[in-house]
């Protein structure tokens, strides 16, 4: 188990390094640099040269790369060209918002998805199953950005139930926890709804298939033969077995949630990582793009690492190996 874990960790580090190197390369292959967007035709070329020198962009690529990797290893992510703040601070401000949004979405995603999937499978071909199938296939096929815009149109523009974006202006404090929570909840509702249901639909489809498969196994007959009520057969004996393949989906949903949050954060002006990334890309803010890629990359790798470890927890057959 320990050696399995260290091996996986080593793989993860290598993978991350590969992702960073590719991103670095891709950024520099694209023509132009950050200052092209900041200048006007009147800017003297000498000034531009001076700026490039100041930020080290005049050095050969391998030197830039080496300098940057060196910094990363020491925990120095550099300075944002656009915001003139340490990249670390920029990311530290945005990360909690993204984590809040994605973890809540993930909760909706899997809670709604599994319950719907299991119930549909247990009551196959019932009215509930058919409705759930139609709705989830429909939601699954919608592009996230369109779904987000429609929800925004419906709930904040037409019905005016929820704010169209932002995080609200109630500051966090122990004495106004209630109002802060309420404001957060109101602002989180739409983004979580969009991100959560989009994922829940695919989880429900997946879970349904997995449960139907497990329902046909011999141990299910044994469980009924023992006199267990259907509820226990399904939620104890079938569910645990059916959820083994679901763990892969949890691991795979990390990238989906993060990339989905880029769209959702942009539409709902949510000050998270996704928005930081989009803005950095627009401004060609190299250090921020690289660092946020590294961060999301780490989260994705962490997700699959967690999935691998959870396998062993749920399935004793893997634990033994």
């Amino acid at each position, binding site marked *: 188990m320990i050696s399995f874990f260290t091996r996986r960790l080593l793989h993860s580090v290598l993978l991350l390094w590969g992702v960073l190197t590719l991103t670095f390369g891709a950024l520099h292959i694209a023509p132009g640099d950050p200052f092209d967007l900041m200048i006007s035709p009147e800017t003297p070329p000498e000034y531009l040269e001076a700026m490039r020198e100041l930020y080290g962009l005049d050095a050969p690529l391998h030197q830039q790369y080496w300098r940057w990797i060196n910094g990363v290893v020491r925990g120095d992510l550099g300075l944002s060209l656009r915001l003139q703040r340490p990249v670390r601070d920029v990311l530290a401000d945005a990360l909690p918002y993204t984590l809040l949004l994605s973890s809540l979405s993930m909760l909706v995603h899997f809670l709604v998805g599994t319950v719907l999937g299991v119930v549909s499978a247990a009551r196959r071909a019932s009215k509930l199953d058919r409705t759930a199938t139609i709705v989830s296939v429909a939601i699954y096929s919608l592009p996230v950005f369109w779904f987000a815009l429609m929800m925004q149109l419906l709930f904040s523009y037409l019905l005016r139930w929820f704010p169209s974006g932002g995080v609200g202006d109630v500051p966090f404090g122990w004495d106004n926890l209630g109002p802060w929570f309420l404001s957060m909840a109101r602002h989180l509702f739409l983004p979580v709804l969009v991100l959560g249901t989009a994922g829940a639909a695919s989880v429900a489809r997946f879970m349904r298939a997995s449960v139907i498969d497990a329902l046909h196994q011999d*141990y299910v*007959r044994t469980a009924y033969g023992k006199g267990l009520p259907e509820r226990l057969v399904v939620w104890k004996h079938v569910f645990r077995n059916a959820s083994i393949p679901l763990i892969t989906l949890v691991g795979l949903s990390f990238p989906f949630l993060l990339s989905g949050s880029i769209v959702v954060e942009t539409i709902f002006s949510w000050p998270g990582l996704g928005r930081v990334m989009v803005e950095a890309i627009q401004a060609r803010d190299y250090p921020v793009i690289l660092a946020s890629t590294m961060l999301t990359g780490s989260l994705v790798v962490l997700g699959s690492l967690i999935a691998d470890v959870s396998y062993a927890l749920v399935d004793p057959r893997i634990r033994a190996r």
Partner: protein
Amino acid sequence: MSDSPLLRVSNLTVALHLEGGTSLPVRDVSFDVGASETVGLVGESGCGKSMTALSILRLIPKPPAEIVAGSVNLSDVDLLKLDSNGIRRVRGNRVAMIFQEPMTSLNPVYSCGEQIAEVLRLHSGLDRRRAWARAVEMLDRVQIPNAAERAREYPHQLSGGMRQRVMIAMAIACNPEVLIADEPTTALDVTIQREILALLDELQAQLGMGILHITHDLAVVSESAHRIVVMYAGQVVEEASVDQLFSAAAHPYSLGLLASRPELGARRSRLPVIEGRVPEPSQEVEGCRFRERCPFAVDRCTEEPPLLEVSNGHRARCWEFERVQREGEWPRVQ
């Protein structure tokens, strides 16, 4: 047949509703199982014996299968008339079942001890600790060495024979009155088969339970069963004590089954074969359902024979049973 059998299956008929239409894989099947008695239910694959066994506890998949007629009496209660809570209290408690595939019949993600303890918590109302202790006791009782350690192990860590012992421990945990064993040794090595059969005999002697042993293998039940019920194409074709069947089989199909057993030391180059195939459950055969494969068939066989009394406790579904008994041998195929 004893006067007050523990389990009495009467006129059980099961329908199978498939897209192609409805068929009857179990037709008007009746038999009894008494206390401390082992009844062997014998027949080839597809003859309806497993369907019969599953129907007793109403474990057949519904749909497509449906019990359309008959009754299953356990003492005075008709299991087919119980509501879903009622039948649940019988399953695993008063009537328990073990299956052919010990590999897949245990849940891979729960320890063996937990799977046994679960039945005890359910039916005997034991708390977690006492149920676990009793589960270990049960494993000990089915002669699993180091029961306390084995209880914590998972099915994949045990051999096929051990898993079947775990299944048996689970089945007898609540002291059932009847144990239904559906091909309990088919998937096991021959030596392990013998051990499992001996264990079942021993447990029966201790607990006094009736055993319904379903098998396609006459040899398996010849030693442990008291009575044998032979099924063919959904029907009971012969019912007899083991001695009666082996010395004077009265139905041609039983005779064929007996003849097709390999015998140690016999210098036969080829075993006799029952030619042809079992009719599909959906296929309606006029008269006797074995007629087309039967070397004893006569004109009268186009009329369906009832179960005829051969002698005391011996019945056969054949018009020609006297001739079958007289000739006593399956004709050799040239």
